C-alpha cells in the first residue's frame, strides 16, 4: 500500500491538465524524467483485482506486473476475462454501466482508480487498439490527426509531421501517402487496423493496449502488425489480448494465462489468472496443469 503523500503526488499526475508532464517517480523525487525509464521498470502493478458488472463478478484475483518496453500477452479461452482486465488498464470499463473494480491497479506507481484520477488523462497515456478496426468516418489524415487535435495541437506543420511519422511507424505511409484525403473507411481490413494503430501512436502514448488486434485480419496483415509491434516496442509498452497462441509465442515477452471458474450453484462464470510469467516458460514449462492443458491444445 502507498503512503498518503505518495498517493497525492502520484494521483496529481493523472488529474487532467492541458499538457500532462511525464509521471515522476514518487519515491525518488530528484530523478530526472530521462533517467526515469532506467530507474523503474514496472508500468502496471495489478494487485488482487476483481472486476464486477453490477453484482456479477467477471474476473477475480488478478495480480500481475507489466514491464516497460515489453510485449505482454493475455491468453485464455473465451469468457475468461482477458479483455475485461485489459480494459481496466486504461479505464475503458468506466464506459460500461455498472462496471466496478476492486483491488489495486497502479500505473507507474500512481493508483489508476484513485479519487481524483481523470480517465481522460489516463487514456491520453494509455492508448488502445480494438478488435475490429474502427477508423472514424473521416479522411485518413484526419483520423491520425484526431488525437493530437483534441489534445490541442493545431499547428499545420506539426500535424503534418505527426501524421507522417505515425503512419510510418504503423507501416502504412507508403500505401496511403497519395490518398491522405480519402476516407479512412476506404481502406482494407489490415490497412484500417494499421490506421487505428497510427491513430493511437499519434498521441505518443506510454502504453498501447491491443484487444485481439489481428482477429479480423488475414495471415499477411497479421504478420505486418506483428512485425510492427516488435518494431515499436523499444518506444512503447504493449499489452495484447490474443486468441492465437502462436501469436503470443511469436511476439510476447511475458504471457498471462487466464481461465474460467464455473460456479455450479449460480451457473455463472468468473475469469481467473492462472499463471503469469515469461512466455518461454508458460509455453514450455508451465507450473500449472491447466496452463499445460491449454497450451498443448488438450483444452480450449
Amino acid at each position, binding site marked *: 500500500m502507498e503512503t498518503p503523500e505518495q498517493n497525492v503526488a502520484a494521483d496529481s499526475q493523472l488529474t487532467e491538465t492541458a499538457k500532462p508532464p511525464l509521471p515522476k517517480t514518487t519515491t525518488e523525487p530528484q530523478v530526472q524524467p530521462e533517467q526515469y525509464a532506467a530507474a523503474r521498470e514496472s508500468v502496471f502493478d495489478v494487485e488482487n483485482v476483481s472486476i464486477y458488472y453490477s453484482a456479477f463478478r467477471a474476473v477475480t484475483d488478478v495480480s500481475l506486473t507489466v514491464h516497460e518496453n515489453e510485449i505482454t500477452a493475455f491468453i485464455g479461452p473465451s469468457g475468461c476475462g482477458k479483455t475485461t482486465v485489459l480494459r481496466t488498464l486504461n479505464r475503458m470499463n468506466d464506459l460500461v*454501466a455498472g462496471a466496478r473494480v476492486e483491488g489495486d491497479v497502479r500505473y507507474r506507481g500512481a493508483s489508476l482508480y484513485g479519487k481524483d484520477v481523470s480517465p481522460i488523462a489516463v*487514456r491520453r497515456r494509455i492508448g*488502445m487498439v480494438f478488435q475490429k478496426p474502427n477508423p472514424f*468516418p473521416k479522411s485518413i489524415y484526419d483520423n491520425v490527426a484526431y488525437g493530437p487535435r*483534441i489534445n490541442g495541437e493545431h499547428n499545420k506543420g506539426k500535424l503534418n509531421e505527426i501524421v507522417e511519422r505515425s503512419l510510418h511507424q504503423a507501416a502504412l505511409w507508403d500505401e496511403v501517402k497519395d490518398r491522405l484525403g480519402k476516407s479512412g*473507411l476506404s481502406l482494407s481490413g489490415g490497412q484500417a487496423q494499421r490506421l487505428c494503430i497510427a*491513430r*493511437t501512436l499519434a498521441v505518443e502514448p506510454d502504453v498501447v493496449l491491443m484487444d485481439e488486434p489481428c482477429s479480423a485480419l488475414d495471415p499477411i496483415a497479421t504478420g505486418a502488425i506483428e512485425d510492427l509491434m516488435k518494431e515499436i516496442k523499444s518506444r512503447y509498452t504493449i499489452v495484447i489480448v490474443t486468441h492465437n497462441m502462436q501469436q503470443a509465442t511469436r511476439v510476447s515477452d511475458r504471457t498471462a494465462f487466464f481461465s474460467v471458474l464455473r460456479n455450479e450453484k449460480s451457473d455463472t462464470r468468473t475469469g481467473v489468472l492462472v499463471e503469469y510469467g515469461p512466455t518461454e516458460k508458460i509455453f514450455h514449462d508451465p507450473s500449472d496443469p491447466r496452463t499445460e492443458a491449454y497450451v498443448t491444445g488438450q483444452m480450449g
Partner: protein
Amino acid sequence: MAAITEPQLGPNLEEPAGWRRTKNRMATVLMVVSFILVIIPLVFVLYTVVAKGIKIISWSFLTSGPIPPNVAPADVGGIGPAVLGTIEIVALATAMAVPLGVLGAIYLNEYGGKGVLARLIGFFSDVMTGVPSIVMGLFIFSIWVLHFQFSGFAGALALGCLMLPVVIRSTDEMLKLVPNPLREGSYALGASKARVTVTVVLPAAIGGIVSGALLAIARAAGETAPLLFTILTVTTANPNPFSGPNTSLPSQIFANATSPYVGAQDRAWGTALTLIVIAFVLMITARIITARFSRFSR
C-alpha cells in the same frame, strides 16, 4: 430425385410447382397491387394541384401583395404576404425547435443513458408527437395570444412545439445508428464525452440529423390548424413577426379555398402548388446534404 426421372443431364434446378411457389406468386402480386394503390392517390393529388395551380403561378403571383379580396379574379394581385409570412414563421420555428431538439436527443442518447430523466423526456416527447396540431394551436392561443397578441411569433411557437418531438425522435434514431466502437476509439485517445459527441458522434450522424430536421420543417410549413388561432391570417404583408397579425401559405389556402369565388379558389390552387414545391425543394436539399455529409462513410 427429379434428376433421375428427367431425361436432361444434371440436376433439376427449376422451382418445383406447389404451395410454396403459389405463396411466392401471391406475395408478388400483392406487393405490385399495393404499390399501384399507393401510387394512385399520390399521382392524382400531384396532377390535380399542378394542373389547376400552374396556370396562375407567376413571379408577380409569388411576390405581389396585399392579397386581393376573394371576389377579385385570379389574375389580380398575388400571395406575396403569405410567402413572406411562411418564411418568417417557419424560420423562427426552426430556429427554436431544431437546436433544442438536437440537443435534447444528444442528452437522451449520449448523456442520459438509462436514467429516469432521460426515459421521462423520451416518453413525453413520444406523447407530444401524437398531440393533434390543432391542440398545439389552442395551447399557444391560451398561454401566449390571450396575454400578448396575434403574431407570427405565436405561430412559430405553435409550429416549434410540433416540430420539437419530430426532431428529437429523428435525431435520436440517427445517434443510435452511430456505432459504439467509434465512440470507444475516440475515448481511447483521451477525448472527453463532449469531445466525443462533437467530433465523432455528431459528424457521423449529421447527414441524417439534417435531413430529419428538413423533413420536420417541410411538415411544419404545411400546417394550417396551429396557425388559425395564432397568426389570424390577414391579407397584408407583415415583415415583423414579433408584432401584429400575420399570414401564411397554408392558412391562405384555407381562407381562399373555402370561399365561393372562382378567383379565390384559383389562388388557393396556386398557393397549394407553391407549398408543394417548397416541400419538394426541402426534400431534395435533404437528400443532397445527406449525400454530401456521408462522403466519408463509404
